[in-house]
C-alpha cells in the first residue's frame, strides 16, 4: 500500500466528525431501511432488478439505439459516445453555440465521473451545483464522499464556515437556517441559468424516457427553468420497458434513504415547453466509458446491475470508519472500488481494493444482487496477475504450499515465541511486528498441535466415520477446540478421522489474490480429505468450511482448471460446518442434551462466513440454548470483529477500531461469556479482551458444548 494512501486512512480515522457522523448514520440506517421494506418481499424485488438490468446490459447496443430513436422522435437530440472527453466537448460546444452564460446542475454522478465542472470553469462558464450536498462540496472545493449524501462527512459548523467564506459572511451553524440560506442563494441562479444539467436514474428504451429522482426538487427546477436541458446518462441506466421502472423505484429510495419514495420522481420523455412557450432544447448524452467492456467480462457484467443506492457503503464496517474520500474522487465504497477499476483503470483500485474486509455485509442487502466482495477479490486476483505478488508474500506463500515446511515452521514458532509468551498469550511483539499486538494479544502456538494430540485420544472404533478438517488455527493454536469436537462426535457414535496430509485451506492466499497458491492448497486438501470414506467432512472454522465447500471449486473455475472440478464438487457435497452437523445429530436423536441445566447468560457473535456464506445463524444458537444457556443478543451481533485473516496485519489501524466496537457490544450485554463458531474470531476477540483485562470468557461453540451431552 502506498504511503499516501496509508496517510489518507490515518487522517480519516483521526477525524472525529467523520467517524462520529458515519457511525451514527450506519446505526440509524439499518433501522430506517428495515422499516421502509416492511411488507415488501426484498428478495423478489432484487430478483426483478437483477433480471431487468442483467437483460438490459446484454442488449446495451440495441437498447441505446432504441432509446435514441424514441427520444429523437419526441424532439430530443441524443449523442452517444464512449469517450468522457467527447462528452465535455459536446456540452462546451453547445454552450458556446447557444451563448450560455450560466449553468445549473442537479446531482449527476456521471458528470462527477468525467469532472465536468472543471471543464466549465476552464471555459469560463459559471456552473452551480444545486443539490445541497453537492453545492456544499463544490463551494468547499472537495469531491463527494458518498454517492447519495455527498457532504455526509461535514458538520454544520463546517458547512457554516464554507458558506461564510465562499458566499456571504456571518452564517450560523443552524441547519434550518443554512438550508434557507441555500434556497435563497440558489433560487436566482435557477431563474437566470441558460442551461440545466441533470443525470438520470433510469432511461427507458421503449419510450425514450428519463426517470430522475430527487428529494429537494432541484431537478424539477433544472429541467423547467433553463431553455436548454442536457442529461448525461451512463448506458447502464438503460432498461427495456416502462414496466422495468417499478422494481428499481421500489428499491432505490428504500435502500438509499429509507424512504418509500423520494419527494420527487420526474419522468421526462422528449421535449417540453419552456416558460416562454418555445420547445425545450433537450440533449441526452448516452455515455459508455468502459461500461460495454464490463458487459464483455463474465465476472464484472453483474456490477452493471448497480442502481447507485450506496447501501454497500452504509452497511460497510470499514466505510463507517474511513468515509469516502480515501476511495478516490468519484465513486466510493465497495461498488465504488469496482467502478473505479473499470471507469478509471485497474491500477487505480490497487490500494482501495485492500480496504474490503470481505465480511460480506453488503451481499444480502444489495438491490442489484451484486457479489461486491467477490468482485473485489477478483480485482485483487487480477492485480496480482498483472503486477505480481510482493517478494514477502511470495516467500510466505512458498512456505504455505509446502505442508511439511509450513508445519515444521509452526512447530518451531512454539519454541521461538518463548521470550514473548505470557501464559497462552503473546502480548507484545518487538519492532515492526508490534502493530499486531498493539490492540490485542495473540495466541501462543500450542506446545502440542492437534495433529499430535488426536493420536493420544482413545476413540471407540465405529462404522461411521467423519473426516475432521482442523485448519491452521485449531491445529496449531487452539487444539482444545478439536478435542471438544472429537468428544462430541464420539458421543453420537461417530469416529473422527484426521488425515495427516491436510494443509492450509488456501484462504490467506486466495484473499490476497494469489489464486495459483490457493489452487495448490486445494488440490492437496482434496486428495487428503477424500481418501477416507466418510459421511461428512466437518470443520470448526467457517472460513475453512467455505474454502472446502465453495472456494476450491471457484478457484479452479476462475483459473480454468478443469481436471480437479469433479473432485472439488465431491468434497463440497460432503463438507459441513460444526454447528450444522451437531444440530443435525441432535435432530436425528443421536445426541441428547443433559437435562435441567441452567448455565446462565451468554452472548453469541456471528462470524462472517458462517452467517453470510454458510447461512448458519440459528443452529449454534439453538444448540447453546438447548444446552441450558440464555442468549443475551449483542448489538450488531453479525458485524465483523475485524480479524479477517491477514487484514488485521495489513490494516491494523482499521481492524483495531472495528474490534473495539465489537468488544463494547459484547460488554454491554452483561454476559460473562461470548461464544462463536470461528477460531479466527476467537483469536481476535479473546486477544482484545485480554488486552483490556476483561474477565469475559471467549469460547468456541464446540468447547462450550463439549460436556453438555449425555
Amino acid at each position, binding site marked *: 500500500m502506498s504511503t499516501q494512501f496509508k496517510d489518507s486512512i490515518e487522517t480519516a480515522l483521526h477525524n472525529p466528525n467523520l467517524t462520529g*457522523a458515519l457511525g*451514527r448514520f450506519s446505526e*440509524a440506517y439499518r433501522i430506517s431501511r428495515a422499516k421502509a421494506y416492511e411488507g415488501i418481499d426484498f428478495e423478489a424485488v432484487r430478483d426483478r432488478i437483477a433480471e431487468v438490468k442483467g437483460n438490459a446490459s446484454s442488449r446495451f447496443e440495441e437498447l441505446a439505439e432504441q432509446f435514441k430513436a424514441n427520444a429523437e422522435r*419526441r424532439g430530443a437530440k441524443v449523442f452517444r459516445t464512449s469517450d468522457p472527453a467527447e462528452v465535455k466537448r459536446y456540452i462546451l460546444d453547445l454552450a458556446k453555440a447557444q451563448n450560455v452564460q450560466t449553468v445549473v446542475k442537479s446531482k449527476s454522478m456521471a458528470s462527477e465521473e468525467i469532472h465536468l465542472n472543471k471543464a466549465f470553469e476552464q471555459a469560463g462558464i459559471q456552473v452551480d451545483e*444545486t*443539490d*445541497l*450536498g453537492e453545492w*456544499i462540496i463544490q463551494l468547499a472545493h472537495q469531491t463527494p464522499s458518498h454517492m447519495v*449524501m*455527498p*457532504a*455526509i462527512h*461535514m*458538520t*454544520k459548523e463546517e*458547512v457554516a464556515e464554507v458558506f461564510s467564506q465562499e458566499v456571504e459572511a456571518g452564517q450560523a451553524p443552524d*441547519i*434550518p437556517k*443554512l*438550508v*434557507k440560506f441555500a*434556497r435563497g442563494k*440558489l*433560487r436566482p441562479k435557477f*431563474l437566470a441559468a441558460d442551461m440545466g444539467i441533470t443525470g438520470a436514474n433510469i432511461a*427507458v428504451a*421503449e*419510450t425514450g424516457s428519463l426517470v430522475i429522482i430527487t*428529494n*429537494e*426538487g*432541484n431537478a*424539477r*427546477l433544472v*429541467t*423547467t*427553468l433553463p431553455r436548454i436541458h442536457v442529461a448525461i446518462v451512463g448506458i447502464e441506466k438503460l432498461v427495456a420497458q*416502462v*414496466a422495468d*421502472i*417499478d422494481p428499481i*423505484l*421500489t428499491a432505490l429510495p428504500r435502500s438509499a434513504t429509507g*424512504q*418509500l*419514495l*423520494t*419527494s*420527487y*420522481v*420526474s*419522468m*421526462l*420523455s422528449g*421535449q*417540453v*415547453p*419552456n*416558460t416562454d412557450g418555445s420547445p425545450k432544447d433537450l440533449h441526452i448524452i448516452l455515455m459508455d466509458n468502459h461500461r460495454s467492456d464490463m458487459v464483455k467480462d463474465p465476472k464484472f457484467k453483474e456490477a452493471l446491475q448497480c442502481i447507485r443506492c450506496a447501501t454497500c457503503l452504509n452497511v460497510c464496517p470499514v466505510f463507517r470508519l474511513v468515509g469516502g474520500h480515501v476511495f478516490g474522487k468519484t465513486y466510493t465504497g465497495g461498488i465504488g472500488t469496482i467502478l473505479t477499476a473499470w471507469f478509471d483503470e485497474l491500477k487505480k483500485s490497487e490500494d482501495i481494493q485492500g480496504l474490503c474486509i470481505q465480511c460480506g455485509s453488503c451481499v444480502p442487502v444489495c438491490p442489484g444482487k451484486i457479489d461486491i466482495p467477490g468482485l473485489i477479490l477478483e480485482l485483487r486476483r487480477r492485480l496480482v496477475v498483472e503486477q505480481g505478488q510482493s517478494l514477502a508474500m511470495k516467500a510466505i506463500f512458498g512456505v504455505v504450499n509446502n505442508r511439511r515446511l509450513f508445519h515444521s515452521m509452526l512447530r518451531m514458532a512454539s519454541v521461538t515465541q518463548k521470550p514473548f509468551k505470557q501464559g497462552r498469550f503473546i502480548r507484545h511483539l518487538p519492532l515492526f511486528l508490534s502493530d499486531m499486538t498493539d490492540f490485542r494479544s495473540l495466541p501462543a502456538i500450542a506446545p502440542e498441535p492437534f495433529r499430535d494430540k488426536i493420536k493420544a485420544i482413545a476413540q471407540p472404533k465405529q462404522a461411521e466415520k467423519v473426516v475432521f478438517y482442523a485448519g491452521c488455527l485449531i491445529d496449531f493454536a487452539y487444539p482444545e477446540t478439536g478435542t471438544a469436537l472429537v468428544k462430541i462426535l464420539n458421543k453420537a457414535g461417530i469416529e473422527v478421522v484426521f488425515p495427516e496430509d491436510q494443509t492450509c485451506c488456501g484462504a490467506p492466499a486466495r484473499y490476497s489474490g494469489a489464486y495459483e497458491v490457493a489452487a495448490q492448497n486445494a488440490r492437496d486438501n482434496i486428495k487428503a480429505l477424500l481418501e477416507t470414506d466418510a459421511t461428512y467432512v466437518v470443520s470448526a472454522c467457517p472460513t475453512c468450511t467455505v474454502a472446502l465447500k465453495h472456494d476450491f471449486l471457484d478457484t479452479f473455475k476462475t483459473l480454468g482448471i478443469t481436471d480437479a472440478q469433479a473432485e472439488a464438487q465431491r468434497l463440497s457435497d460432503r463438507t459441513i460446518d460444526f454447528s450444522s452437523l451437531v444440530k443435525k445429530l441432535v435432530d436425528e436423536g443421536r445426541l441428547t442434551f443433559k437435562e435441567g441445566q441452567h448455565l446462565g447468560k451468554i452472548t453469541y457473535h456471528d462470524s462472517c462466513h458462517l452467517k453470510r456464506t454458510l447461512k448458519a445463524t440459528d443452529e449454534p444458537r439453538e444448540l447453546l440454548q438447548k444446552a441450558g444457556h440464555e442468549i443475551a443478543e449483542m448489538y450488531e451481533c453479525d458485524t465483523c470483529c475485524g480479524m479477517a485473516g491477514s487484514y488485521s496485519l495489513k490494516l491494523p489501524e482499521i481492524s483495531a477500531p472495528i474490534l473495539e466496537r465489537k468488544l463494547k457490544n459484547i460488554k454491554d450485554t452483561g454476559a460473562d461469556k461470548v461464544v462463536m463458531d470461528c477460531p479466527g474470531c476467537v483469536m481476535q476477540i479473546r486477544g482484545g479482551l485480554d488486552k483490556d483485562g476483561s474477565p469475559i470468557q471467549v469460547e468456541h461453540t464446540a468447547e462450550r458444548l463439549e460436556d453438555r451431552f449425555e
Partner: protein
Amino acid sequence: MSTTFEAFETRAAAVSAEVHRFATRHEGLAFIEGFLREVGVSEAPDSGAVWVEGSFLEGIGPAHVCSQVPGVSFEVTREAAATAKVGISQLDWAIAATGTLVQDATAVEKRLVSTLPPIHLAVLGTERILADFNSVLQRLQPEQINYIAFITGPSRTADIERVLTIGVHGPERLIVVVVDEFEKVTA
C-alpha cells in the same frame, strides 16, 4: 374507496403533506379561499397566488375566486410564480401505497406553480386515488405524455448532518385538497 383514501392520507401525512377531504367542490373551494386568506394572499407585492385552472373550477369560474380572494391570478408566468406565496393546481392521480400525487406536467404552468412558490396546494378527486405505482402508470401513458411528475410530500433534504429539513428548492408545504364530488372530471 374510503380505505384507499385513508391509506393515502396516512402515507401522505407521514411525509408531512397536509391532507383535507371534502364532500363537495364548494366545500373544498371554501376551504381553499379561507386558507389563501389565512396565509396572507393579497395583491401586495410577493403575496399572490398562482392557479392553473382545471375541471375543479368548472361552472364556478376563475372570476369568482378572484373576487373572493384578491391576489389570486390565473395568468401563470415564470415571474408570477417566482414571487407567489401559493401555487395551486389540479392533480391527475394519487398513489395510496406511498402518499404520492401524480400529474401530467407537460404544461409548464403546472410545473411552475408546484415548484417555485413556498406552498403548493393540490386539488384531487377522491376516486383518483389508486392503490400503487403500477396502477397509475397503466393509466398515464409515458409514450404519450412528455413530463410526468410524481410528488410525495414537500421538498426535503438531509444533506447536512442527515437532519431532515423541509423546504429546500421546492415547496415547504404541500396541501392536498381531496374532493369526493368531482363530476365531469376527466384527467
